[in-house]
């Protein structure tokens, strides 16, 4: 039986959630042959982090999250 790919998604999602919880926001992303490379920046600390998201669901997830953040900001 092939690996359960859901776990892979969860771990990538956790990375994104962790960063967001710590106050990072997404600043850029780039599609590559190996997935989406997403840049985060902590506006407080100016710390930058780059992660690569490979699972399709996490690649959906980060943009959904970004859209939600945008909407919150415009509210």
């Amino acid at each position, binding site marked *: 039986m092939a690996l359960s790919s*859901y776990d892979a998604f969860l771990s990538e999602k956790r990375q994104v959630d962790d960063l967001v919880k710590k106050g990072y926001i*997404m*600043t850029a992303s780039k599609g590559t042959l190996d997935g989406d490379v997403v840049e985060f920046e902590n506006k407080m600390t100016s710390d930058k982090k780059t992660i690569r998201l490979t699972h399709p669901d996490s690649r*959906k997830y980060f943009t*959904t999250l*970004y859209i939600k953040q945008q909407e919150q900001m415009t509210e």
Partner: protein
Amino acid sequence: MADISINFAGIKSPNPYWLASAPPTNTGYQVQRAFAAGWGGAVWKTLCEPVLNVTSRFGGYHFNGQRVAGFNNIELVSDRPIEENLKEIYETKKRFPDRVIIASLMVEPERDKWHEIVKRVQDVGVDGFELNLGCPHGMSERGMGSAVGQHPDLVEKSTLYAKEVAEVPVITKLTPNITDITATAKAAQRGGADAVSMINTINSLIGVDIDTWSPIPNVNGKGAHGGYCGPAVKPIALNMIGECARQPDFHIPISGIGGISTWQDTVEFMLMGAGGVQICTAAMHHGFSIIDDLTEGLSNYLDDKGIASVSQLVGKSVEKYTDWSNLDLNHRIVARINNDICINCNKCHIACEDTSHQCIDMLVDENGNDYLKVREDDCVGCNLCSIVCPVEGAIDMVDLEPAEPPMSWNDRQAALQVMNSNS
């Protein structure tokens, strides 16, 4: 009882069923038999400078013992002189004044040729014209049929020429053997067509005889590509109709053709934008009597749904037909197996295991009975298991409560653009 009559581009028909221009409408004898059986209309076998046909013309495509899933032909347009045809059209119309007769026409894309034939035919009193710009074989070598239909400019011109003299509605019949059918549909509209009809037949070769190594059908051992029609082409036709119907700048009615063999097909075509339908292969397979269930089934369906008139179906699903990039990426469905109904053939398991996402487990319960279960977290909702499942109702594809708000590819691209332009 629901009203199943239609008014298609101004042409009134007691029901939405017309025989397509093809062998069933070759003669007055046949069309009159069809009308007696209950068909609403007939598009006469294409009139043209009469052609010559080969013998051995058709090929059938059978699927797992069920005959005529598809059908192909290397027949051309009418091989009978126009005069005879006109006489019979006249007689038929006289005998069945409430039924629709459309004359299908084909000539080279030249103004006087179109003028001549249109004028001559409308004198006998037809309810409309259909311009055959789609015949995929034999005629194209002569600069007609699809040799015209594959060029938007020629489609536009031909339509225009016909319209210049036609006093009854003109329907331009489109060929599916084209990269983008909306281009020719719009060309027809530009040419002034009152409607379009689609699809004509698709280039095909039904098979090769594995003993003689000759194409099927063959003439003295040799074959040529023919036109494919019948149930197998329905999904192709349905898409072309939907694509045209959903063009914001396309407004004329569509006569739906291609693989229709049941009242259910009819409902689907009309929902996807057809104002009426035409049928050829189903009638050739079983004869004209199929009209009985076609009309009654449609009528019972409308009654069941409480819909007063069949016209109310037209185009109702068009707004649901869109570009892939507008579909919601966050929508989630998963497969769920009803173990009560499941007969444990394990087809879903092996389909998912070999060819999808390996998430249907074959398990044994505490009583030692086999059962199957979908690991929903890993299920991508592809539908494969439910398609291969032989038992109605054994697998449901279930909408999950959306975890996230809808986001289409277009939404996502827009958001990413914002994100990247901010940086």
